[in-house]
C-alpha cells in the first residue's frame, strides 16, 4: 500500500537527548514509529511522521519531550475560529451528556 505521509517540516516535536534515560516509553507509545531506542538512548528516526498526539510527551518520565499536541482536524480549527473556547473536537455533535469542559 502507498504509505500515507502528511506535510513535512511542520511538527512542533522537541526532544532533549540530554534528559533521556533510555526507558523506551516514547518508542512504545508512538503510533507512527517516530522514535527509536538504541544503546540506552532514544532518537528521532522519522520526524515527519509525527502527528502531535502527545503520547510520547505524556509518557516520558524524564520530561525530555515537548510537543504542542492537538487534534489535526480542519473542522475543529474552523469551529475554534467561529465559536472560540466553546468549540469541541467531538464528532458526535450532541454534547448533552459529555464530560464537563469537553
Amino acid at each position, binding site marked *: 500500500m502507498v504509505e500515507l505521509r*502528511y506535510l513535512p517540516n511542520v511538527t512542533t516535536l522537541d526532544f532533549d537527548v540530554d534528559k533521556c534515560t533510555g526507558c523506551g516509553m516514547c518508542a512504545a507509545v508512538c503510533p*507512527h514509529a517516530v522514535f527509536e531506542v538504541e544503546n540506552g538512548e532514544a532518537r528521532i528516526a522519522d520526524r515527519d511522521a509525527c*502527528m502531535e*498526539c502527545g503520547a510520547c510527551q505524556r509518557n516520558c518520565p524524564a520530561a525530555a519531550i515537548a510537543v504542542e*499536541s492537538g487534534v*489535526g482536524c480542519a473542522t475543529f480549527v474552523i469551529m475554534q475560529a467561529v465559536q472560540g473556547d466553546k468549540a469541541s473536537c467531538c464528532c*458526535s*455533535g450532541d454534547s*448533552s451528556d459529555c464530560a464537563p469542559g469537553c
Partner: protein
Amino acid sequence: MSTPWGEVRRVSTTLQTSDRLSAWKARWGIGRMRYRVEPGLVAVGRPTAESPVLVSANYKMSFDRLRSQLDGQDAWILVLETYGVNVWCAAGKGTFGTDEIVRRVEAAQLQRVVSHRTLIVPQLGASGVAAHEVKQRSGFRVAYGPVRAEDLPAFLDAGMQATAEMRRVRFPLGDRTALIPMELVGAAKYVLLAAAAMFLLAGLGAGGYSAARLPGVGVWSAVLLLAAAVGSIVLTPVLLPWLPGRALSVKGTWLGLAFLPFVAGAAWFRPEAFSGWPTVAAWCLLVPAVASFLAMNFTGATTYTSLSGVRREMALAVPIQAVCAVAGVVLWLVGRFV
C-alpha cells in the same frame, strides 16, 4: 459472577446480531449517545486473582471489539467513563486519562481483586495516560497493549510483548471507508442547504424571478452540487493514498478537477441548464473548491494528520477555496442573466 467483593458483571466474548446492528448504526451517527457501556469492572470467562486486567473505554464499539477478541480467555476488563467516546479520541480529550484510570482502580478496589499489579492499557490511550503517574498513584504499572484488539491474543500469548507492527497505526482502505457514513451525515445539513439555495436562486434571470426556471436549471444545479459534494466525501477516503499531494486540500482539488469532464458531459446533455460561458466557468471553479474543502475536512478522521500540518495547509487552502467559491457563485449568478 460473585467475587468476595460483590457481584461483578460477566460478559460473553460473542457478539450478537444486535451488537453488530448497533455498531452499524453508530457508524451512521444513530443513537451514538446511548451506545455506551456502564463503567466499572467486568469479568470475561472465569477470571481469578492472577488474570490480566485490560482497560477499555465505555464506547460500546471499543468494548465489543475488546471482548470479542478474548474468546477462551479469563480476564478482567476495567471500563472507564469516557462518555461513549472511543479510546483514541477520549485520550486526546483527557477523559481516557490518568485521573480516570486511578479513579476506577480505586472504585473497583482492584488491589484486592487481583494479586498482580499490572494494567494492560490500549496503546492509543497513551496520549491521555501517563504510565509512570498511574504507577505512582495507584500502585499499578501500565503495560501498553497493541493498537488493535485483534492483536491481543498474540500479545498475551507472547507474555505481553508487542511486535513493532502491533504498535503502528495504519489507515487501510477498510478503516477509511468505515468513516464515510459519519462524514456524509456531518456534511449533510450544509450541503443540502447549499443545494436548496442554488435551486431557489436558479429562478433568477432576465426579466426577474420565474419559477419556471426551477425544474430545469434549478434542479440540475442542485444535482451537480450534490454530486460534487457526495462524490468528494465518498472518494476522498477511498482514493486517499493515490490522490496527488500530501495536503488533503490538494488531494481534493485534483479530485474536483477530475470531476470536470463529467460537468462537461452534463453540459452537453442539458445545455439549457449550463448555457453560456459564465455558468461553465462557475462550475469549473465551484466543483474543485467544494471538493478541496470537503477533502480538507477529512483531516479530522485520519490517523496521521498533525494539528500544525492542518493549520499550515488551511492557511493557504481556505483563502483560495473561498475566493474560488465566491467567484464561482458570482459567475453562476451572472450566468442566470446571460
